[in-house]
């Protein structure tokens, strides 16, 4: 079934995306390794979200193919594709909570759909996931519309994690979270990656998140991946977008954190002001 190397959990081959005359991706190739956190960055309109939707099979590329777990999303066996959908989780930018269900039911829904687990186990698992993302038990019976934006995001993460996925997609995971929450979000992702061997693909603009959790960064510009590698490697690539993104005022601050890990994010021990 798999015509690809086992190392790639997602493989994108010669992908083209066109909307009418406008070419979004031209001959794009990418391999996401098992167990890594890959950040996808790029300017607005560079096709980051489209690329992620193509990895999820929500949109189909004009040309080229996407393989996830070695299965082609376009031509794979329907039964395998259905099983595949239980092996990944997606955190949508706005949460995409089912508004007619409570928080608890939202997280329990994918587990119930398996039709094999008993209610008690589902209950314990759901409460464990909610506790993991920092949602207290008293919020479990609330409706999504009565939660704050940050809480919706965390419940959505709990739902994305409820099937114990091997692969997690995050769309702007820390947008709309306060700095403290962003920080604990990054810690949570790092813990999950360590404990469960999770592979994470995320689209984000938040440099602090990129620097603190990504193993590799892919920069999408000029209709293709212009740079791929560790944060430090990518930041050194001469490209106008990268220069703007990583060498701007905010970029410098976040990169400072990379050089002296643990200091830039510590409140007790703030980084020394830059001299120039």
């Amino acid at each position: 079934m798999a015509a690809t190397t086992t190392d790639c959990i997602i493989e994108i081959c010669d992908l083209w995306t066109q909307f009418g005359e406008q070419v979004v991706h031209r001959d794009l190739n990418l391999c996401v390794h098992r167990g890594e956190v890959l950040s996808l960055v790029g300017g607005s309109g560079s096709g980051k979200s489209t690329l992620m939707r193509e990895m999820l099979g929500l949109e189909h590329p004009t040309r080229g193919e996407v393989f996830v777990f070695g299965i082609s999303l376009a031509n794979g066996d329907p039964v395998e594709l259905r099983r595949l959908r239980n092996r990944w989780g997606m955190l949508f930018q706005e949460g995409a909570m089912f508004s007619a269900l409570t928080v608890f039911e939202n997280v329990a829904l994918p587990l119930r759909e398996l039709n094999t687990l008993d209610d008690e186990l589902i209950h314990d698992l759901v409460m464990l996931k909610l506790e993991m993302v920092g949602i207290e038990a008293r919020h479990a019976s609330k409706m999504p519309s009565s939660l704050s934006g940050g809480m919706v995001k965390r419940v959505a993460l709990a739902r994305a994690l409820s099937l114990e996925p091997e692969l997690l997609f995050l769309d702007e995971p820390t947008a709309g979270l306060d700095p403290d929450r962003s920080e604990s979000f990054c810690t949570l992702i790092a813990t999950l990656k360590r404990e469960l061997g999770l592979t994470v693909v995320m689209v984000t603009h938040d440099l602090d998140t990129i620097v603190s959790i990504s193993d590799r960064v892919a920069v999408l510009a000029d209709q293709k991946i212009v740079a791929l590698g560790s944060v430090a490697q990518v930041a050194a690539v001469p490209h106008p977008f990268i220069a703007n993104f990583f060498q701007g005022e905010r970029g410098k601050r976040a990169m400072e954190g990379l050089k002296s890990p643990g200091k830039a994010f510590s409140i007790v021990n703030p980084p020394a002001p830059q001299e120039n």
Partner: protein
Amino acid sequence: MQTSEAPNWVPPTLSVGRTAEGRSLVNVIGAWNLRSMESVVHALRQQLADQAQDAQWDLSAITRLDHAGAMMLWRAWGKRRAQHLVMRPEHEGLFAHIQAGPELAVPVKQIERRRRLWAAGRAVVTLGEHIIQVVFLLGRVSLAFLEAVRHPATLPWREISANVYRTGAQALGITALVGFLIGVVLSYLSAQQLKAYGAGIFIINLLGIAVVRELGPVLAAILVAGRSGSAMTAQLGVMRVTEEIDAMSVMGIPYTLRLVLPRIVALAISLPLIVLWTNAIALIGGMVSARYELDISVSYFISELPNAVPVANLWLGLGKGMVFGILIALLACHFGLRIQPNTESLGVGTTNSVVAAITIVIVVDAIFAVLFSGIGVA
């Protein structure tokens, strides 16, 4: 089945033995993740439950472990750590997590046993709320209208014209079809009865009064309530959900002027026109049927119609159309603005809007029938 699992995948199993001290030893082997356990979870739970209380647990042969697997074991141990336990250090974290978890109980919502009287009272109060809110909305729209009439430039002409097109021009097809068929059926059935008394000529009176005074306006109103009323409710409801209405209020644009008024004015214009159109088509249907059933020629039908049906009936019908239009749009907007930001509320609101609009149309029609009983009857 597990084609895409790692090649060294082993199903989740328990192997029971004895330790040197004679206690029972449980070796937990294989992949204890949700995907592997999914199909055998019942059997596993049974096996786990069969183990002795003081058994020695060895988890070091587990190849994969996730929260679901850890939770299964945790429950087998009676929701605490097993006394005699060996596991790989990388799995400690999962159990530590479960152990650290606080009280894992969803607060159960008390389902009140509502008594019938209570429910009836509640329904009356809700009805009262609706009436008050509709009156308030009507008041605000009237004020906005009066204000706009004094400064015609502020009237949202484009929205009004767009709504007239949507609720009027685009409804011509369906109202024509329904009107024509009703005309044919009514005429055909009446002709059967009239023929028996040799009173075929009265088909013109019967059809004329029924269609122009009653059926045309009510039929058109019901179709428009289902078609445009639901659309208006859904539109406003979605705007409420996406906070578009709040955005307008923040910008200082009154939504009664921008959203509610154009819909009411548009339906007040388009529904009488639709009524006129439905009347005409229904009468054509009746004429066609009368031509074949009773041999009444089309030209005779047309020339006799003004004598049989006083013109007051037409004005009454058109007036009813205007009132129905205002009511339908008002109720549609009222229900649209009440919608809560969730999908269920959107569905309930749209249904309620259509049901309320049709009901009110029929109630008001009955009131009209009583008030104008002396007018237009030869």
